[in-house]
């Protein structure tokens, strides 16, 4: 959207005019820090920084040994996430009961959908874990956790009777048998 409020201008933009200045819809300032309003906002008086000067201190980017451990830890957190959810899920399952109504169905759907979604975006998770040394182990744990979550959802479906595991579930698909003999007749007229 070509909105005038965007940051696409070459210089800083302002829509707020000064108190003494007649309010304008917009202005474009080609020179930085030249106006009074800018001055007031920055509150730095007439000081003009040279180009390339940053007010913020530059952090120290040299890699330290402790950071490495932190990454490992963070990666394990990611990998163990699904497993940690399981007790919670079990609790929800227990609470929602086996009746077929809208809330238990929603719970089950959510429980089933989350691991499936996670499994589908496995590659993205692997990218996250790339920096870790135990990448494969963590991946495996993550996978198992999700599979367990999915299994739990299926078990819930099973206990609610939503899985077509009985012969009665396939009853409607049985074709009527073809009759081999043609028969007719009746009382002698």
């Amino acid at each position, binding site marked *: *959207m070509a*909105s*005038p*409020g965007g940051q696409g201008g070459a210089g800083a933009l302002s829509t707020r005019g000064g108190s003494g200045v007649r309010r304008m*819809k917009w202005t474009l300032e080609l020179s930085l820090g030249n106006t009074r309003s800018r001055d007031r906002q920055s509150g730095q008086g007439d000081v003009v920084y040279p180009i390339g000067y940053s007010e913020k201190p530059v952090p120290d980017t040299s890699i330290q040994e402790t950071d490495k451990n932190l990454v490992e830890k963070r990666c394990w957190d990611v990998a163990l996430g699904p497993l940690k959810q399981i007790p919670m899920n079990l609790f929800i399952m227990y609470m929602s009961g086996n009746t077929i109504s809208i809330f238990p169905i929603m719970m089950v759907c959510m429980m089933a959908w989350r691991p499936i979604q996670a499994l589908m975006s496995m590659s993205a998770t692997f990218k996250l874990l790339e920096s870790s040394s135990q990448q494969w182990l963590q991946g495996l744990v993550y996978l198992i956790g999700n599979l367990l979550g999915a299994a739990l959802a299926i078990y819930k479906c099973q206990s609610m*009777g939503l899985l077509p595991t*009985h*012969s*009665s*579930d396939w*009853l*409607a*698909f*049985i*074709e*009527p*048998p*073809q*009759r*081999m*003999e*043609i*028969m*007719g*007749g*009746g*009382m*002698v*007229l």
Partner: protein
Amino acid sequence: MGKLILLLLNLIVLYNIVAAVFEDQVGKFDWRQQYVGKVRFSHFDTHMQSSKKVLLATESNVFAAINTRTGDLFWRHVDKTGPEGNIDAVLHHGQDAVLVVGNGRVLRSWDISVGGLNWEIVLDSGSFRSACLVGQQGTVKHAAVLKKSVISLHYLSNGHQKWVENLPESETVNYQAVHSDGNGQVYALGVVSHSHIAVVAYSAEDGEIIKQVSVEAPWLSNIPASCAVVGQGMLTCVDSTTMSIYTLDLYQQLQMIQIPLQSLGLEVDPGFQPHLVSHQPHPARQPLSEFLLQLGPDHHLLLQLNNGQIVILRDFKPALLVSFATTGEKTVAAVMSPKNKTACGINLFSAESGRRLLDTTLIFTVDPNAGKPERLHVQAFLKKDDSVGYRVMVQSEDHALTFIQQPGRVMWTREEALSDVVTMEMVDLPLTGTQAELEGEFGKKADGLMSMVLKRLSSQLIMLQTWVAHLWKLFYDARKPRSQVKNDVSIENLSRDEFNLQKMMVMVTSSGKLFGIDSKTGSILWKHYLDNIPSNAAFNLMVQRTTAHFPHPPQCTLLIKDKDSGLAALHVFNPIFGRKSQVAPPALSQPILQSLLLPLMDQDYAKVLLLVDDQYKVSAFPSTKNVLQQLQETAASIFFYLVDSSQGRLSGYRLRTDLSTEQVWEVVIPVEVQNIVSVKGKRPNEHVHSQGRVMGDRSVLYKYLNPSLLAVVTESTDLHQERSFIGILLIDGVTGRIIHEAVQRKARGPVHVVHSENWVVYEYWSTKSRRNEFSVIELYEGMELYNSTVFSSLDRPHAPQVLQQSYIFPSSISTMEATLTEKGITSRHLLIGLPSGGILSLPKMFLDPRRPEIVSEQSREENLIPYAPELIIRTEWFINYNQTVSRVRGIYTAPSGLESTCLVVAYGLDIYQTRVYPSKQFDVLKDDYDYMLISSVLFALFFATMISKRLAEVKLLNRAWR
């Protein structure tokens, strides 16, 4: 996907029970037609000049009054069927009509203006002979009833007996007629066959015998057939053997005077029994001295008896029917004479002079599809200028009544043949041109490129033709004023509706008249009278080709079998138009035992009909080469069974390739012990959607769906209430294997059976507990299917599981049928015709042998109703609300294009057509669905979205500016 939807529907269906009709739906889907039957006696109400009533007493034991202007019923009284309710005589005087009912059992008087009962008395036993009104000094106050050995006189006002006298010598003399002509005497006329006439004159005052004479008459055997009282007490008889008219003066009783017909220059047609008709305009006065004599089928004479001399007033030849009628002081004779092949002329003649009255010609057009006129009922009235005007009611051979006004305007027609429907079928209406084109194109097997192209071209040509015809009709109608454009159903604009709810009802009546009735409105679209139908014929109606095979016309075949000679004939016709088909049916020289409609089709898509003759040889119709070849190929799998109830023999036959048969099995039920009363197979067009039942633990109990299973019902010959029983046998019709046998002890018929899917429901009278009971048998294969792809009766090693349960029903029933739907998904109901005239729709759910006595978790899961021995009749289950259907004899059900809807026709004395929705209308929007509300809400929401979108845009823009 379709299956899934069906499954879902199935689930919905299981939870539904039928609901009653709403008040505003009355008459919307249903109609009723009331009939009276074949007319035996008719009396025009002459009590008032402006009266519009005609009283009819019929052979169906109905007494009714009909509006002569419209042909509608004023009132109707339906008596018991059979000889018990038989109407022996009707005496009409003034406001009262006195009926002798049930071979002289009951005397009843009806007030004809409202149809209310004045009084009813039970007469002494003795078979009824004759009855007449007795008047004295110009007033009629009594009715005389002559029985085999007694004569009694009753007051017309209250029915009390004035006197009763024994008839003298009633062991030898056969009293046959009673006569009174207002002189205070009642004459009982009896005959000793081929010997003499006995005349006994009673005083009307006290029943004293005034005179008793016997007169030689060796030629006489039946008084009502050949005699009539004419003029001043002259008993006049005609005899064909001596070719003479005899007269006897009842007042003096000297002797019979013989007048040879030759002396009058008359001659009786050879082989014809001459007949005399006299006329007594008022019961308190003497009969006219003029009388009618019939000498041949179309030869009538108007004669006058004058001082013992007979004068010929007029000779009517040709004259089909003649009848007297009186109005005021004038008596006329109406004579119907044939004009040409399609019309008859009726003229009035003065009874006194035999002169033809001017301007009294009436033309009666004889419908070629109706029977010949049989009787003439004349209603004469005096016009303002004192001349005689008249209307006639013509009764024809096919029991139809036609009421005609001068100069030949048919005021109404009543098809009384419809009071006795024997069998019926419902046929789909043809598609419109466009629909038929599509069906014809894709509904057939491909047979070569060239023929397909030709077929397409021909069907498109037909389509073009119908389109042009339609355009022409539009153009033609546009020029006419709107009021003249008729919009009713006629045979030309018949076409199938969207959901195939409108069908053609083809009805076969016992008189041999066929009707085509539109199921939506009940209007008769075609009729066809088959003459020469024997009185005790058996009919079998089959649909050989439906309307689905455009451009081939639909085809129905009616098998008519004379039960006496055993010979049968086929009538092939188009069920939509009623026209006889060009297809020539084979001449059947051998007596036919049964017919069998095969699912095989010939190249013209007509189903093959097999006829089994008494040599157990089979002939096919149509019998083209193609058919014979198909028959040869499939002969090994064609079986049929015959049930001979007189010998108690059930036998099964197999077809050989040379169209002879061999007997495969035979079951003999000893006729000394029990009789076979009915055999019920399954309906060939029945579909069963679900192959099993889901149990509470979600396993499946598979149904035993044997298409060739027969339910045979037997009743014991011993009717003693301790020893009588009924038996039910389930036999496989192919192998003769007895699947199940049940005997209900201390039970008696009549048994009504319905056999469908995997269940048999039957109803009987329990003599032990004196109540009607229902019993249901269900057959299951078990938890496993033996063979899920094919069903062969020859390969069935395991016997099915049989479950049975019985219930008490609070009413007796007249007939029973099960609903039928297109795919068999909808739950089934039983339609029960009750003697009270109601039709009950009883959910099959209540007749389920798996209904548990103790409710468990599983049975609750299965939706089983706990067992209760009584079946309750709920008033909302009556599908015909207050439209009573008298004497229901049969109920016919047909599927419609909607799975939820089943078409029902109940026939008996009345015809009632309706629709039932056993699982409610799950596939149709409700009748009172608020289209306006829904569409306005939709539009409102749409516009609201549009507006709010615009508003949101503006708001966003404004926010961006901030």
